[in-house]
C-alpha cells in the first residue's frame, strides 16, 4: 500500500474528522485532527486501519497555541497526527484508553509543557524533580533557565 492509498483510506474512515492531510515526503503522512475528536479518531484508526504502534508524542510551543503530534509507526512509514490546543486553556484528552503505551509520553507532556491531560491513569511527575516549583514548564518558549547562585557547603574555607 503506498502513501496515496493510505491517505484515501484514512479519509474514508475518518470523514470530516480529518481536517487536513498532507504527504510532504515519501513515507510520511501528516494528519490534523481537532482535539475534541482525537480519541474517537485514534480509536477508529486503531481498530479499522491498525495504527497501534505509537512511537512518541511531541509537544511544540507555537506562541498562543500548543501543537501536539502523535507519531505512529506502521509497516512502510510514519503517520503523524497533529492537534492544536490553546495555551490559555491547555487541556488535552488522554489517549491511554486506546493506546495504553502512551502514559509515559503524556506524563512527560504534563511536566514539560504544563498541559493538563484529562483522565490520565497516572498523572504523577515523571521527569521533573519532586521539589520543582509549580508553574515552571521548561519546554515552553517563555521559560528561561536561570542558574541558581552556587552555594558551597560549609562556606568558604
Amino acid at each position, binding site marked *: 500500500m503506498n502513501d496515496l492509498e493510505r491517505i484515501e483510506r484514512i479519509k474514508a474512515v475518518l470523514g470530516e474528522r480529518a481536517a487536513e492531510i498532507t504527504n*510532504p*515526503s515519501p*513515507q*510520511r503522512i501528516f494528519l490534523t485532527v481537532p482535539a475534541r475528536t482525537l480519541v474517537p479518531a485514534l480509536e477508529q484508526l486503531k481498530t479499522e486501519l491498525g495504527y*497501534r*504502534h*505509537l*512511537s*512518541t508524542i*511531541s*509537544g*511544540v*510551543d507555537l506562541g498562543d497555541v500548543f501543537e501536539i*503530534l502523535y*507519531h505512529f*509507526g*506502521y*509497516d*512502510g*512509514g*510514519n503517520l*503523524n497526527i497533529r492537534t492544536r490546543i490553546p495555551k490559555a486553556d491547555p487541556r488535552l484528552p488522554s489517549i491511554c484508553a486506546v*493506546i*495504553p*503505551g*502512551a*502514559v*509515559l*509520553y503524556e506524563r512527560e507532556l504534563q511536566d*514539560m509543557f504544563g498541559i493538563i491531560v484529562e483522565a490520565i491513569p497516572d498523572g504523577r*511527575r*515523571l*521527569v*521533573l*524533580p519532586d521539589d520543582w516549583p509549580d508553574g515552571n514548564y*521548561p*519546554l515552553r518558549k517563555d521559560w528561561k*533557565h536561570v542558574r541558581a547562585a552556587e552555594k558551597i557547603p560549609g562556606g568558604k574555607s
Partner: protein
Amino acid sequence: MKFQIPIGPQHPALKEPISLRMTVEGEVIRDADLRLGYNHRGIEKLAEERTYLQNIYLTERICGICSHSHTTCFVQGVEALLEVVAPRRGQFLRYLVAELERVHSHLLWLGVAGHEAGFDSFFMYTWRDREVVMDILEMISGNRVHYAINTLGGVRRDIDEALRTKILDSLGILRARTDYYFKLGANEPSFVGRLAGVGRLSKEDALALCAVGPTARASGVAHDVRRDDPYGIYGEIPFEVCTADSCDVLGRTVVRIKELGQSYNIIEYLLRNLPDGPVAVKAPRRAKPGEVVSRDEAPRGENIHYIKANGSDKPERLKVRAPTLANYAATLARLKNGFIADIPLIFAAIDPCICCAERTVELIDGRSGRPTVVRWSDLRRRAARRAGRVSKKRNVECPL
C-alpha cells in the same frame, strides 16, 4: 573524626539512574513502579539554543552506547530539512558504523545477560570478542565511544583499502564466536533453565504497550525500522528481521544473537559494495521553515527525532525519544507476578544502559506495607540461589 562520602543514589558514574519501586507479596512482585528524571539534562531545551552542527555533538551525548544512532537519526532529519543528500560512499560508511555499533552493543548485552544469570565466563568471552569490534570502530573513527563520524552532508572520515580488508578478516572471527554463543545459548542447560520462561511479555501486551526493538521482536512482533520505514540505503540491503515466539528473556537473547549474524552480513555487503567517490558534501547552515520526522533502528529499538526548523541556523524544536523509554511500560508489565530474584534479568533484558544496574531497589511488603531497601548485589545473590534450585535438563536441545 567522621567523614561522609556521598555516593548515590545519584552516583556520578551512573549514566542512567532510575528508581524502581516494587510492591511484593512474599517473593512475588504484585506491582512495579518507576521514577525517572534523575539524570534529565534538558537536552531538548538546550538544542533550541545550538546550531544544527553543534547539535550533532549534543545528540551524540544522549547515550554512551548507541551514540551513533542518535546522530544518525538527527543528521538524516536535518539533511532532509537542508535539502542535502549525502554521497553514496558517505552513506555506506555511516551505516557501516551503525551496524558495527549494533554488534558491539549486542555483544555487550549478551555479556550483561550472562552476568545477571550468574554465567560470568560467558560475560568474559563476549566482552573479549567485543574488543574486536571496538578496535575496528577506533580504527575507523579514532574513538571508542563517541565516534563523531556523522556530519551534515556525509561522514567525516574515509576508510582505506587496508582497513576494509582488516574489517572483512575480523568478521570471520566474530562469525565463528557468535555461532558458538548461539550453540551455548540454546544448549547449556543451566543457562537455558535460568532464562526460559522469565519475564513473559505476550504479543498482545507488546503491541498494546508499544514496545520496540529486540524486546518486541522476542514477543513475535516483527517491527524493525530498517525494514518497515527504510532510511538511507537500507532499502537495497538484503537482511532478515529476527523474531522469536517464546516471549521471555531466552527469546530476547536468541533474537540478539541472530541479529548479530544479520549485522555481519550487512557489514560484509556494505564493504564488498563500497562505492568510490567523496564521503561528504558541503551543507548550508540555515534550514528553510519546515518539519521532519526521522526514525532509525538503534541497537535497542526504534529511535525517533522530530525536528522543526524556523528558517534560522538553530532548530525551533528537537524532540528525541530513545528506545529505552518506549520499553519501560513493557518492563513494568513483565515484572508483575514475577519473582524478586528475576528483577535483574528482566530489567537487563530491555538493555537499559548498564550503569543503571548497580542501584538500590525499594521493596514494599504487600501485607505490612513496610518498605525495605535492598542492594542490587543482594538481589543478584537471591537470583543465583534461585537458579541453583531450578531443575536442569541435561543434554536436551531446546527448540528455539
